[in-house]
């Protein structure tokens, strides 16, 4: 009798255990094909994060663009080397003043919900993008209106020239969703596009995996290389590494240290350079830090860094030392600026002496999580020439607002290297977030305007802007960072210019 309650407890415990296991099992659904290893016709990618909304106007760049490409076509296709080719747009042409882009469209394309792609649909998308307040809405900021010319032609009218517009039409702004679904609640969770794949909603779980199946009758078989494509969401770097080396995913983005493990497991590297790392010397008028107003001080900071050694020690050599903030693929890059500030501590000390700030320069920078080692190396090298670097509190999620509010006079950061006007409006112009003190000169304004009006010559004209900010030492760039994108031998991967993860068209089954 005495054993009664205890037995009951045991029974309860056991039944709870069984019940929980059963719940778990049932929660996962009924039997089916478990994690079958990808065959030649299926591709599984390890992604850093899930998309927030399938509304094409909420698409972003790089990692946050890739999944959209599975379900949405863009007006213009950007090839791996950056060349812009026809996609939903067959032809496009500017007027003489570069303020009107006339775009001819395909007539044989339908969306997955049955709606037809035509000039009205394209206009609906561009109009929606402009007002949907998405993360890349700035891409169409220069568009004043979109006019339907005929069933397969639109005019995109600009309030001012934007040399990057064609590029934007190959990115988030160019994604075309079904006009009947745009703006609805449904499109947030289930995409409706004309792309090579359609989402398998029953097999997809938010923040865990998204499954796509090849779309029947897709208009461009060359861009549809797989029967099935799965994005497995693996936010944790260790998890991504483990999933890749154990064969659960075919390709994913790692970092130099984890890359060593992947290389040990015979994974292949498809690398390119997308970001630059370095100091942003933001307070060039000396609002908060008078020393930074002196160009000699800013140049001295540049001469203080032994970029090659820092790269080798901290980044395992994965990158290229540089003195310029503009990217190699942007057209603004020049050979002469690459090593403009070579390591020269004596010259740095000399410049500081001339500036009158000898042993009297203190830089306060916020700590970028994950870059603590790098910042301490910078601190050491600056100390060698008599500059004090004080790492402050870690950057947190109020960071963008803090930068805009002029909280930081200088900071260490990694920044994307985009097309000339993209980069200018990111770090140089008075519109740029990373020019919070709105520094400029008439000379610089003139150079920037020349780029904006430059049309096809924008890249070349941006070399002047690049030269200006390098000579004036607006930044202290350290290096362009190698993106460590690894894949197994079942898939061929071509890196995509200016993207850490390739576009989905760049994967193909290995023969």
């Amino acid at each position, binding site marked *: 009798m005495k054993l009664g309650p205890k037995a009951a407890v045991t029974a309860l415990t056991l039944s709870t255990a069984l019940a929980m296991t059963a719940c*778990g099992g049932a929660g996962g659904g009924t039997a089916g094909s478990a994690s079958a290893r990808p065959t030649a016709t299926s591709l599984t990618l390890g992604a850093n994060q899930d998309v927030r909304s399938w509304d094409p106007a909420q698409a972003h760049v790089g990692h946050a663009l890739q999944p959209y490409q599975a379900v949405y076509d863009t007006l213009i296709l950007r090839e791996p080397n950056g060349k812009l080719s026809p996609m939903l747009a067959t032809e496009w042409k500017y007027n003489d003043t570069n303020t009107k882009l006339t775009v001819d469209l395909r007539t044989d394309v339908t969306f997955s919900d049955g709606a037809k792609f035509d000039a009205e649909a394209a206009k609906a998308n561009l109009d929606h993008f402009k007002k949907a*307040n998405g*993360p890349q809405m*700035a891409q169409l900021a220069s568009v004043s209106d979109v006019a339907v010319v005929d069933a397969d032609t639109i005019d995109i009218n600009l309030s001012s020239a934007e040399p990057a517009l064609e590029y934007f039409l190959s990115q988030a702004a160019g994604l075309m969703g079904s006009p009947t679904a745009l703006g609805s609640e449904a499109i947030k969770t289930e995409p409706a596009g004309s792309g090579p794949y359609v989402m398998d909603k029953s097999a997809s779980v938010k923040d*865990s995996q998204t499954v796509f199946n090849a779309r029947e009758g897709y208009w461009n078989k060359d861009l549809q290389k797989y029967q099935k494509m799965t994005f497995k969401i693996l936010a944790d770097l260790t998890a991504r590494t*483990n999933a890749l080396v*154990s064969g659960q995913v075919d390709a994913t983005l790692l970092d130099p240290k984890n890359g060593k493990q992947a290389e040990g497991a015979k994974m292949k590297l498809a690398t390119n350079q997308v970001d630059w790392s370095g100091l942003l010397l933001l307070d060039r008028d000396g609002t908060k830090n008078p020393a930074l107003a002196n160009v000699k001080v800013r140049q001295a900071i540049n001469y203080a860094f032994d970029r090659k050694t820092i790269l080798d020690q901290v980044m395992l050599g994965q990158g290229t030392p540089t003195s310029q903030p503009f990217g190699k693929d942007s057209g603004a890059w020049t050979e002469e600026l690459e090593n403009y500030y070579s390591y020269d501590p004596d010259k740095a000390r000399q410049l500081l002496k001339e500036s009158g700030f000898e042993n009297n320069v203190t830089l306060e920078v916020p700590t970028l999580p994950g870059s603590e080692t790098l910042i301490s190396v910078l601190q050491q090298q600056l100390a060698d020439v008599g500059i004090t670097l004080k790492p402050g509190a870690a950057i947190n999620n109020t960071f*963008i*607002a803090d930068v805009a509010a002029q909280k930081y006079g200088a900071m260490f950061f990694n920044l994307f290297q985009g097309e000339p006007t993209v980069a200018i409006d990111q770090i140089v112009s008075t519109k740029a977030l990373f020019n919070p003190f709105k520094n400029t000169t008439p000379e610089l304004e003139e150079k920037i305007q020349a780029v904006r009006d430059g049309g096809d010559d924008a890249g070349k004209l941006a070399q002047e802007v690049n030269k200006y900010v390098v000579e004036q030492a607006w930044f202290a760039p350290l290096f362009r960072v190698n993106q460590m994108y690894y894949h197994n031998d079942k898939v061929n991967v071509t890196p995509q210019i200016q993207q850490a993860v390739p576009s989905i068209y760049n994967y193909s089954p290995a023969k």
Partner: protein
Amino acid sequence: MIRFIAKRLGSGLVVLFVVSALTFVLLYTSSGSIARNILGDQATPEQVALKEQELGLDQPLVTRYFAWLGDALSGNLSASWFTSEPVANSLATRIPVTMTMVFAAMILIAVCATLIGVAAAVKRGWVDRVVQVGAIVGDSIPGYVIGVLLVTVLAIQLGFFPATSTISPGVGPEAWVYSMTLPVIALLINGVTGGAQQIRSAVIKQLERDYVRTLRSRGITEREILFKHVLRSAAPAGLTVLSLQLIGMLGGVVIIEQIFALPGMGPLAVTATAQTDLPVVMGVVMYTVVVVIVVNLLVDILNGWLNPKVRVS
């Protein structure tokens, strides 16, 4: 007993309300420009203002709290600012994963810790010493380190288990068992060693009590003394430790789920916090508070059932 449960549930609701209000105030007053975070670095001030209006951030804090509370009471817990998905939906798909793992680990911890603890207390000698040393070693290795070791050896080198979760719609229970085995082991090692240590002390303490000597003098077998009397008296200590471990595990599971890419509460909590997706963070906090309240209540009830001396009126 029913009055006791009702009373505890009532106080639980008060705690839930107070925690929700405090968390809400803390989160909403210290998160900087949320609209700016959502829109990214290209947003103009007008766009930020528009987004703030969309999210209701231009309303006074009290108005926003009661709007959230109304939504919470209707069972929606409001919607994610980033994905627009109702928070209740996100929780519903994730709680089964986390709870299956936590309960499987707890049950194993309860069984293993009891067996080891009792063995150490009764046998003493070398068994006891091994358990004591094991407790120190087990306690000093964090669960995530054990997790990484298990993945490297058992998943990557030997290929016995998947390196990251294969749980997805349409998979059978075997995928759940395979995906959960390593994370559960990683979770339970600390718990078993810590729990065994507590149970050992409690059993030893009981074995030294007068009533045990009296029972022995009356010729009752050691086995009967241990299982019928000592274990029962030692149970409250064990239960309390287990309940604390379960609550602690809600934190540990966050990292374990990241390592094994399990679609549970951990990644949701981490992503939501990093993005300042406050409605989701509120949902995660509410879930945690509910679990803590329920676990404490269950422990009190079980304690009373096992040991009349601690039974509450």
